[in-house]
């Protein structure tokens, strides 16, 4: 019976008087055609991130691949089995450094002013670049860890810690510097910081082997958490600061 009702409803609703103006639809179509230059647009962040991959400086990809190859060669060719992880700690800050220059590109090359009044705006540009760089860095890091794991007999969770923590500490530090340093020198400061971290990491294996005992893992975890929180807060600061960075523009 309910189906009967539904059928009758459909029938009822179909009984509609014809349109008074038979040309109505044609005139609307004409109107639509008169609009020139309709530009199909997209507004999803996912689409935007995909398009930005193409615009990342090719040097970033080249350096990452070079780094991976050199690391693989070096580890496989020269290192003894137990020392596999030795290089992992100093190399990860360099991986991060390669990508950080992308984040400050808009300011260093004075494109920011043109990028702000667009649909996606500077904020999304930075976010997209960050997402791409983080993804690339994580991929490189994973490869590095796999290569290391092939040689070293360190536990995998320890390897992950030794890989991710220096990475995160570098990233946090670089972002911290870039958020407080607007000019072109920021590149030099971040480079100095990353290289210093790398050197300390490299030396630590010999000078402070106690850092790499299983008992120290708790501290590594703590550093990881702190660096993660710091990184997140600096990312937010960077994204929120986008337009305010230009507040320092003064009339000539």
């Amino acid at each position, binding site marked *: 019976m309910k189906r009967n009702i539904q059928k009758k409803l459909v029938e009822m609703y179909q009984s509609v008087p014809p349109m008074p103006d038979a040309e109505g639809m044609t005139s609307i179509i004409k109107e639509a055609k008169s609009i020139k230059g309709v530009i199909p*647009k997209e507004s999803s962040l996912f689409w935007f991130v995909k398009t930005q991959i193409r615009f990342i400086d090719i040097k970033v990809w080249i350096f990452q691949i070079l780094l991976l190859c050199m690391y693989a060669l070096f580890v496989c060719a020269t290192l003894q089995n137990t020392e596999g992880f030795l290089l992992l700690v100093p190399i990860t800050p360099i991986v991060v450094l390669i990508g950080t220059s992308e984040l400050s590109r808009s300011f260093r090359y004075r*494109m920011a*002013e043109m990028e702000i009044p*667009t*649909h996606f705006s500077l904020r999304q540009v930075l976010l997209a670049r960050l997402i791409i760089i983080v993804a690339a860095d994580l991929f490189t890091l994973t490869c590095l860890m796999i290569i290391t794991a092939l040689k070293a007999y360190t536990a995998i969770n320890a390897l992950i810690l030794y890989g991710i923590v220096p990475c995160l500490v570098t990233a946090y530090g670089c972002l911290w510097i870039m958020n407080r340093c607007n000019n072109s020198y920021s590149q030099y400061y971040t480079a100095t910081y990353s290289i210093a971290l790398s050197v300390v990491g490299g030396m630590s294996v010999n000078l402070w082997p106690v850092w790499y005992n299983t008992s120290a893992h708790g501290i590594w975890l703590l550093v990881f958490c702190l660096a993660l929180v710091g990184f997140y807060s600096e990312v937010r600061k960077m994204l929120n600061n986008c337009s305010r960075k230009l507040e320092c523009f003064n009339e*000539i």
Partner: protein
Amino acid sequence: MELILDRLTKQFKNKIAVDRFSYTMKAGVYGLLGANGAGKTTLMRMICTVLSPTDGDILFDGHSINVLNERYCDILGYLPQDFGYYPDFSARDFMLYMASLKGIKNRAAHKRTDELLHLVGLSDVATQKIRSFSGGMKQRLGVAQAVLNGPKILILDEPTAGLDPKERIRFRNLISDLAKDKIVLLSTHIVSDIECIADQIIMMKKGKLILSGTTADLTEQANGLAWNLIVNPNELEQYEARYCISNLHHTSMGVELRIVSEEKPAQNAQPITANIEDLFLFHFSDELGQTSGKTSGGIQ
């Protein structure tokens, strides 16, 4: 289509760059005239959401641009006064990059890029790196990216600065073509650039709006400000010190001066038809230091 600037104010630390600027714009070309430091760039940056005003509001069709956000940026095109470029980019890369920022889909982006590069005369250099471009070419590329998204509002900050006369004329014609059914605001301190193409001229001084009107209105206002006078070469210095001289021409009979002044500078001075440049000089002479300057009919 209406853009309302409502008592816009921008204060930087101890300097007020734009002071309670109010103006309404409808479709047409608006020329923003003012000396360096008058606040033109700051005003334009506020219109383009690059800077946020200290006070006041900007309304497009009755809606505040803070509410409209991306929808406002979708109908906006901006050419900054001084812009850089990513060094590895070619002209085409640059256009496609800006197209992606404006949310234009791939196929349409390529089509628009080709169309616009052709329009601005950069088709043959589309694949060349921007670092090899001349100033004029760069400016043309800048205009091309500004109109990528088919904007209703076009803001051009000193688009002809640094261009040679031929390029300036080309630019003027390009802007005239693009200006149909749009609000175009272009700023300059070169009067001749906008005299011909602007429907309305807005004069800005020390952050304030001091004058606005059509070329005809302003020329009328300038009436009685321009004088022609021939003086002896040895009197030249005292006239230069006392009056604003917009043009100076040595002839066999003496030095022919075009003086901008409210009162008659000398007994034998002849009143002549004033133009916008005279009006501009009259208002801005103190900022330009014209009282002692020798110019040749233009403010550079």
